[in-house]
């Protein structure tokens, strides 16, 4: 029996799903409510961007963005299989997991050069 390497993508999928389930709704709701709740947008921006100066905050923000990206990519990739949509593995895998990796890298670049 050959060992599958699926645990790599499944770990990212599981971590992303867990994050989304715990803090996703709260994040979305609070972002939506910002417009009503915040009196002084400039002050909020200043607070948030100074918060993002700390490497740990940056790392946490990256996790909140990158892991759900992998989660989505993994679900879509396997969703295609369930829908009987066939294609070369390198192409589909490259598109979904490669896409999630590229977007995560872009996000990391922005966060760490802020």
């Amino acid at each position, binding site marked *: *029996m*050959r*060992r*599958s*390497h*699926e*645990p790599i993508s499944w770990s990212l999928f599981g971590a992303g799903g867990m994050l989304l389930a715990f803090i996703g709704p709260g994040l979305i709701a609070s972002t939506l409510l910002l417009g009503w709740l915040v009196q002084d947008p400039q002050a909020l921006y200043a607070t948030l961007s100074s918060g993002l100066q700390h490497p740990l905050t940056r790392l946490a923000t990256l996790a909140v963005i990158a892991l759900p990206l992998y989660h989505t990519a993994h679900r879509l990739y*396997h969703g295609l299989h369930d829908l009987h949509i066939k294609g070369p593995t390198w192409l589909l895998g490259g598109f979904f997991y490669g896409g999630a990796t590229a977007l995560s890298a872009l996000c990391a670049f922005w966060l760490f050069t802020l």
Partner: protein
Amino acid sequence: MSDTIELAVTRYRPEQDTQPWEQRYTVPCSDDMSVLDALNYIKDALDPSLSHRWSCRMAICGSCGVMVNGEPKLSCKTFLRDYREAGVLEVRALDNLPVERDLVADISGVVEHIEAVKPWLIRHSEAPVDTAHSQTPAQMARYHAFSQCINCALCYAACPQFGRNPAFLGPAALTLAQRYNLDSRDEGSSERMPWLNAEEGVWSCTFVGYCSEVCPKDVDPASAINRGKVASDINYGVNLFRLLRGKGDA
């Protein structure tokens, strides 16, 4: 309320038929009659050539599985009264498995998968005969639901991944692997993990979940497989660590 109901049975007799065909029978219908009673009525009173499998009549032997109106069911645990509205019951052999004859599916592939994961207690040392391997209720609760499987193969008829790739170990085999791996008396998980870790092990499952819906014993194989994924994931990490330290692949 009609006192008869029609059964549309998919017949296949390998020595006569080139392909399956449908035969209709009208059988009496009462509140206490199961689909198995109806099949036995056909066999006894209408057509002795019909083949179907059964033994216990009480949902414990696991041999009477058939598709009823497209769903995998134990025929002894499925009642005609629930199909009065529909008027006709379509009965055929379990999906995803070769048909031996009429309603008899060939489950030997499933049995091989189940045997592959060594579904028995593996011990490196035997306890002396005068002492038992004691277990607390909490330790038993960890695997108890998974031990209720009767090997009826309904979950295999339900699983689209097994339908597409019969090499996939499938719900019951992976559940039994978990059942023994979670048992505090067992020492054999290292012999079962390679099966779980393979593509044909837990990783062919895309969590459709239909297996757990059709299981007549509430075993919840989908949950067992997902717990198997966590175990295989941890095993992958541990193995990576071993490889990094220059030890061989486990």
